[in-house]
């Protein structure tokens, strides 16, 4: 039976698609192979022969993989392009997985401490470009204003990421067991929560700016909007990378074959 599971994994693992879609592929292809295997046994074949026959009739993994990939909509393929690269660094990412008996809050805090310092160079780069551009166009901000903006967005990012990890880890996982429709709602809820957190974050930054009125208020707004647009990408990419591999592994392992 393990041979059947391995064959399915050979076909599905390299496909660039959402985790939900890949799980559907896995379950369905495995169910098909299992049915073929059972039919072989019922026809009096030995176990090994029944497996060989089921695999033969199933077709080449390479051809099937290409056809499955082609059946995935392009809009879905693009965001998951990053996953194969992430999978290769699974071992390096092990410290980020959830530890036994670790609470969601503790894990979220641990991930925040890991992810946000690693985003700092990106933050600094983006802001250097923004402030540089504004300075070049004669709308430069003072150093204290620059520092305030950066600090505000850094704190906001930390809060957003924290909330997001807690949500992904606990609430979504708990709701998954309640059925696929609830799972879908939870997934959408995750994105909504992130959006709300970002809006609240932007609000917090506006409050910081409003509390210290600047002679360059119009410039402040430009920076705020630019950073608000960039922040979702910064938060979503690590969140997908961190959760996808764990979920993929867990979901596949949870597919128990023997009754």
């Amino acid at each position, binding site marked *: 039976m393990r041979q059947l599971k391995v064959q399915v994994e050979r*076909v599905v693992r390299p496909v660039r698609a959402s985790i939900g879609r890949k799980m*559907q*592929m*896995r*379950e*369905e*292809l*495995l*169910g*098909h192979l*299992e*049915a*073929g295997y059972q039919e072989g046994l019922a026809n009096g074949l030995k176990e090994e022969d029944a497996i060989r026959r089921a695999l033969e*009739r*199933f*077709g*080449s993994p390479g*051809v*099937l993989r290409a*056809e*499955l990939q*082609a*059946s*995935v*909509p392009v809009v879905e393929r693009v965001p998951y392009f990053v996953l194969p690269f992430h999978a290769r660094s699974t071992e390096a990412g092990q410290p980020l997985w959830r530890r036994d008996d670790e609470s969601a809050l503790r894990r979220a805090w641990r991930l925040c401490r890991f992810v946000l310092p690693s985003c700092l160079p990106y933050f600094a780069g983006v802001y250097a470009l923004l402030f540089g551009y504004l300075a070049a166009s004669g709308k430069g901000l003072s150093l204290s204003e620059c520092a305030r903006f950066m600090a505000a967005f850094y704190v906001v990012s930390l809060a957003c990421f924290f909330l997001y990890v807690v949500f992904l880890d606990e609430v979504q996982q708990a709701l998954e067991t309640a059925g*696929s429709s609830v799972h879908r709602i939870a997934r959408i809820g995750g994105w909504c929560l992130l959006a709300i957190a970002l809006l609240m974050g932007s609000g917090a930054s506006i409050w910081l700016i409003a509390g210290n009125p600047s002679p360059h208020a119009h410039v402040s707004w430009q920076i705020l909007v630019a950073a608000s647009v960039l922040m979702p990408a910064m938060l979503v990419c690590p969140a997908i990378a961190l959760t996808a591999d764990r979920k993929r592994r867990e979901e596949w392992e949870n*597919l*128990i*074959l*023997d*009754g």
Partner: protein
Amino acid sequence: MNEISGDTLRGHLEMMVLAVLSHGEAHGYEIARRLEEHGSGLLELKEGTLYPALYRLEEAGHIRGRWEEKPTGIRGPRRRTYRLTPKGLRELALRQESWRRFVNVVGGILEAAT
């Protein structure tokens, strides 16, 4: 008689799946069996290739799939059952018509050549 396989089969697989599902809902394995049965043993279908066709049809809204719930206590992969949608039924009628025209035209040409 030679078996029908590869590209010849792939080009018409979606139409054949729609035709099979017009007889009633079925899961992937059952569709493969029905195709085998209706093909009088001449279809050499690699069964795995059926699934990309099913996913394409589902994406296009021609068929709809649902997971069969397993009875409590029984573990293992669930089966996904597919059924034709009204849109799929219309698509099947169109493809059948197009196929008949194709057979008539090509058949006529081949008849004339013999």
